[in-house]
């Protein structure tokens, strides 16, 4: 048994996000007073994958994003470190402006309400048009490349079963909250 606990992510939290300590670069961007902004999805049917590192088991029940401008469809999901899909919602209409909650407890592809054991995962989002816009963290793409974000031209809004990673071409880090709560 270790005398000292793990790193900064000591206390299992009911939720984490792409700007919390579980996503190091997102957290750094936040600390750098890089303010949140609104960004139209950069390319149709582009998936953006954001890495998170979990120190304790976490059951995923809901995802939350913030819609600024409604248009078309999206998909969100969770992948393991090697790009294998654990769960995704499937093509879903982008909601009206405001919080949009994606329920991963039912009607999903993959494992509903999956328990993520300690490790690295990718939180994925794909949108089928460039009119829809979302709350994001504006940063610089060189920073996103430092182990935080990857992208893929999927060719469809539905997230693939296996991700093919490429370095990001744009500098927006989508804000995605991952919640273990039954009600968000």
């Amino acid at each position, binding site marked *: 048994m270790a005398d000292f606990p793990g790193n900064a992510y000591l206390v299992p939290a009911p939720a984490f996000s792409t700007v919390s300590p579980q996503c*190091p670069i997102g957290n750094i961007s936040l600390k750098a007073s890089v303010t949140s902004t609104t960004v139209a999805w950069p390319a149709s049917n582009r998936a953006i994958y954001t890495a998170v590192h979990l120190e304790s088991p976490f059951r995923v029940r809901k995802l939350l994003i913030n819609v600024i401008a409604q248009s078309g469809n999206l998909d969100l999901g969770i992948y393991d470190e090697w790009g294998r899909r654990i769960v995704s919602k499937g093509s879903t209409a982008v909601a009206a402006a405001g919080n949009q909650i994606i329920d991963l407890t039912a009607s999903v592809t993959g494992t509903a309400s999956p328990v993520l054991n300690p490790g690295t995962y990718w939180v994925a989002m794909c949108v089928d048009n460039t009119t829809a816009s979302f709350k994001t963290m504006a940063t610089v793409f060189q920073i996103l490349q430092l182990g935080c974000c990857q992208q893929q031209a999927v060719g469809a809004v539905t997230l693939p079963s296996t991700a093919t990673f490429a*370095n990001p071409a744009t500098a927006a880090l989508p804000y995605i909250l991952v919640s273990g709560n039954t009600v968000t």
Partner: protein
Amino acid sequence: MSDFPNVKAETLPFHWSIFNSPGWENNHALQTATFGSTGTWTTANTAVYVPISLPWNYPVKRMFWINGSAAGGNTDVGIYTLGGARIYSTTSTAESGNSTTQYVDVATPFVLSAGSYYFAYTHSATTTNHVWAITTTVPFMEANGILAQASALPLPATATFAVGTTLTVLPVFGITRTTTGF
């Protein structure tokens, strides 16, 4: 029994860089400095030593830095003990790829034990736009224990630390547990 935990590699961040240093974490003014942009190395062949702590044992597979918009010259990055003994360095390497992260494979990967170190960076030229860095000020660099050494390309086997009175840019560089990607 180790005082520091051995955690699975897959729970560790992909990269560990100067963004994880006290100078970044604790210094609000440093954090709100220009958040990275292409720029110029302050003094040719001057090395900067950035104190960084590792909360866990970390497998080092590659080291990296970010090139400016007009990559050129040579860069050397490395890891030192707090006493100034070099643990590893990439040796002087020609920059390649504008505005991108450049990686150097560690020929014999090793595990860097949890603890405190200096991450070191040096560059051969003061040519505009060779480096991608955070612009800051001399007082904040010094206040956060960031040290320097002149005439340090390639990085020396033993560092001779000095207060870097000319340092106004902090390059973005670090280590990674990955062997490919990014």
